């Protein structure tokens, strides 16, 4: 059972890493627009752009 003395601090440490990643994401502006990116990924360039003339 004494293994939990190592495992639980380890768990918290891993959690802290994810918190740091989260902080980075907020700072990088990932949470500024919660609507656009969800649609943007659907907007691939493979829809036939009317006669495929290059933009």
């Amino acid at each position, binding site marked *: 059972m004494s293994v939990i003395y190592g495992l639980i601090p380890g768990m918290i440490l891993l959690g*802290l890493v994810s918190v740091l990643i989260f902080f980075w994401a907020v700072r990088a502006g990932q*949470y500024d627009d919660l609507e656009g990116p969800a649609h943007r990924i659907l907007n691939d360039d493979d829809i036939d*752009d009317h006669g495929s003339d290059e933009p």
Partner: protein
Amino acid sequence: MSKNNSPIEAAAICHHCGLPAAAASACDGLVAGELKHFCCSGCLAVCRVIHDSGLAGFYQRLRSQEKTLAPPPESPADMEQYDLPEVQQGFVRDLPDGRKEAHLLVEGIHCAACVWLIEKALAGLQGVVRAEVNLARQRLWLQWDPAQVSLSAVIRRLALLGYAATPFDQENAEGQMQRYNRRLLFRMGFAGFGAMNIMWISIALYAGSFSGIETEYKQFFHWVGFAIATPVLLYSGGLFLASAWRGLKLRHLTMDLPIAIGASVTYGYSLWRTLQGTGEVYFDTVVTFIFIILVGRYLEAMAKRNASSATLRLMELQPRMATRIIESGEERVSVRKLVPGDRLLVRPGDKLPADGRVLSGDSHVDESMLSGESYPQHKIAGSRVSAGTVNGEGVLTVAVEQIGSGTVLSRIIHLVEVAQGSKAKVQRLADRIVPWFVAATLLLALLTFGYWLRQDFDTALLVATAVLIITCPCALGLSTPMAVAVAAGAAARQGVLIRNGEALEGLSTVDHVVFDKTGTLTEGRMRVSRIYAVADVNENDLLRYAGAVERNFSHPLARAIVQEAERRGLGFAGTVQVQALAGMGVGGLVDGVQVWLGNARLMTQQGIALPAELAARQQQIENGMGVAVLLAAGGRVLGILCVEDRVREGARELVDLLRGQGIGVTLLTGDSRRAAEQLRQRLGEMHVAAEVMPEDKSREIAALQQQGRRVLMVGDGVNDAPALALADVSIAMGSGTDVSMECSDVVLMGSELRKVPYAIEVGRLTLRTIRQNLMLSLVYNAILVPVAMAAWVTPVFAAIAMPLSSLLVIGNAVLIRYRMNRFFSRQPEVVYQQRLQGGYST
């Protein structure tokens, strides 16, 4: 006359924006070899540019999202000014590698297809390094290489695609708001991490309390809980602790106080138990509690779209550059460098840079933004002109009299600032209850402590703490943010944007509604509504003559007539000897026939007799809201074109509905008393305040407020801005100016008037839900506080009861969406249909 006389025919859909293309401005055009319908020539032009740029995939993306656009907004005039260094210093940031960076407000972004179109089109522009669109806030973040492309070229490119872009100082406008939101998000994220981890510890402890656990491990788990809860309380909960402390110092009990007491007392008690090494701890409650409250706060902050300030938008109305006349010719100077006495050249279509007096020239100036007057004003030598208004067809030379803060525009800006500062804040229901709640809780805890002290100190402290913990301010703290977030989300789906959570509660208590006239109750656009031709003349022939002459002019009446002729697909004959007679009308030779268009004075001057029947018609039109344009050809009056700004659909039903609910209605307009009275006759009983200067509009609101009324202002123009800012609650039309939207609490995206009662109803429903939520948490307390006072609370009991109350409150808030759908799927339509079937006529 019945409503059906309007020239609306079979519904065609605009190929670009998807709105009905049946209005007077509709037109057809060839795009990529196919004939398409458009609702206005703006849409046609935009569609052609999109096709010519090879970006036609935009339409496929658009349709796949089942969204409609709005017709393109007017693009900003005089874009070159944004390239000048002295103008750029306000909003452009220089990057170390010589590139530049700016944030732009973009008008006209509706959906993801717009994002794609803008990013794709700008990516094709040489020198644009980075262009990212923020859909939620309609911003463009731009980085470019000034050596290869100018900022004005980018803005012009956007204008061609149908988006109006203005650069702005992002840090100044919304830096504070953004920093607050980020701080909230950081704290929420950290509390979330704490909540997830402490949950495992709790599970272990609960399992241990049922199946037995060695004291050593139990102690260890307690200390781990302590290690997680401490930073969460200090960092995430610090927001509440600090705000509660500030409130206490100001002797002002806010919602943050019970939250701070609840969290810190629970924490303190748990810490004490941990140190003693006996009993149960509630670190998990502290952490989860803070997390859930922060989620509520964050949702509420998201519902608030308070991005840029209204005054910022107002400043944008004023051009930044002017053309000054000097001895050696003319020069372009920054508006800031102008001094009274300078002479300025104002070309057709330019905005006036300063207040002043016309020295020479003859033109019409569109002052609708300042005065609300729907017709352009005729300006000749000696007339006064105001900064920010738009010059019409002629060139004007203007002597500068007022600059900077002395202009009419600046006075409006000042009024808006004053009104926003003095606006009566809607007092939230929760804020009124909280002080009592806090006082009662503390008192009960004290009483309990005193009672149990007779037994022993330890028990007394334990039971008193239990009272404080069990009162669970969590449900109370969540009741408002959850309801606001859900209601704002559901309303947004109906095209009603709630920009301010407090406004929802304010809407429910409104007992007086003030409407602006032009652009709010009316469409704000001149159209040919009826044509009266003499017996032997056909309507289309009449219109063909009229269109042939009028298409040489840009006056709104002329534009309305030409649009109607184009809408009916009439061709125009060639016109020669076109002339305009100031104050009377226009004339020209069409196919060799002399045609005159204008008022009765013109006919008298030309010696053309007006038949009695048409004279009566003319009188009837002019007694109404319209303008009667007489048409004579070959020395004979052939008929009358009635041009008017139509009353918006549903305006009368809206006024009836409001009055039926006992809500007072006022019409507030800068237009003439006669025009206002006409509208009143059509819409039913209401108070009318006409010929009100923009500066006085807010005074009317203040007067109503002094009578104890809770005022809702509905408007659309720059001149409404101070009134919108001052009213208890305000609604802006989506077709209106950006300034009016920034001043308002609610924006109607579709400009449909029937969304006004909808918004009021959403407010009532939200308030009712908040009230129910508060009741729920009070009932919960009424049951559990006595239990706690009697020292009957066991840890398991508390663990079940406390989340239950929060869940009830959250669940009830989520129900708003269903109640709203249920209510609005029947209610307004039923009311409207009943009225329509009643078949009143105007």
